[in-house]
């Protein structure tokens, strides 16, 4: 049965391996590192801005949740 399934599944050498950590290495062993294009850099910048917004949102989230968890009596205590 498992042999049948194996036959049903052609291996696509361009596809990432199941659970692999990285893309397959290119055919040439030491190609020159290619620079990111301006479009790639713009994408990375947008990604960084999104990450910053998420981190800012998390700060606000934890602040509000802390207030809700401690309740209004947080300041009503002996110093």
């Amino acid at each position: 049965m498992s042999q049948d399934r194996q036959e049903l599944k052609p291996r696509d050498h361009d596809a990432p391996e199941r659970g692999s950590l990285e893309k397959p290495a290119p055919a040439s062993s030491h190609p020159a590192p290619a620079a990111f294009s301006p479009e790639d850099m713009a994408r990375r910048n947008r990604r960084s801005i999104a990450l910053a917004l998420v981190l800012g949102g998390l700060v606000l989230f934890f602040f509000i949740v802390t207030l809700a968890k401690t309740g209004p009596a947080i300041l009503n205590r002996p110093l």
Partner: protein
Amino acid sequence: MSAVFDQINRADDGVALSSTGEARDFFALLKPRVMFLVIVTALGGMVAAPGAVNPVIGLAALLAISVGAGASGCLNMWWDADIDAVMARTADRPIPAGRILPSEALAFGLTLSIGSVLVLGLVANLLAAAMLAFTIFFYAVVYSMWLKRATPQNIVIGGAAGAFPPMIGEAVVTGDFGLTSIVLFAIIFLWTPPHFWALALVKSGDYARAGIPMLPNVAGPAATRRQIVAYTLVLAPVAVLPALMGFGGLIYLIVSIATGLAMIGLSLRVLRVTEGDAANKAAYALFGFSILYLFLLFAVLLAEQGLGLMWALPKVLG
């Protein structure tokens, strides 16, 4: 500066260490449509639970549950990148399309998994956090890594992962879970097979190419059609239980009966129409309506509880 930046993002052999994927690609890794259904079902468990929770805490818990669900979807996409690449339906997902590296998806999924469980434990309680952790483990490891490629019952057992959110929702409110959320669990659990098998009937070629032993590929379309009808015949009455138990009202009773009958009708059409385009249309109709069905059941439950529409329905069991 740019040259240095380029160097640190590429290993000696030129393989990229970081992709140029955008925020929307990372968001796509979370399976947003599944996240939306998880939010609706978890909220259903929260509002149906006997008790109340601070709205801020409830919203924070809901956010943690949905992010946890998204994280498990992300880990699923990381593990299944090889089969996603050979299936037309999934070939454009961020990893097989090359927009996100597998290592990035793994790190993203693990970070969100750990973070969502920790946050849920801090804002709600340990039981809810433990259940979320188990749900992520069940979907990412038990279903994705084991069942999916091993048995045609993959989505039957794996469907439990999608059915846990209402139980987590009740655990957030009460610190425990009872019959209420178990019934909601049963509805989603029984809904999963007809929903996925309807799609698998149409996409059986895709699944065959990917080597996934879905029921139509292993037992054949005829047996799959019979199983779809059998599960739907059990699902429809179970979906009426919330009204009979008192946590669904009159509107829920009417909607669950009407949509349940429609589900049975569509499943019978899948059983009858077995050839050509008409068969695919019948399966697609069931697949599409099943999403609306589950959404409607929980949306009505939410509306009744949230808007005070619990009309005077005699409580049979509750």
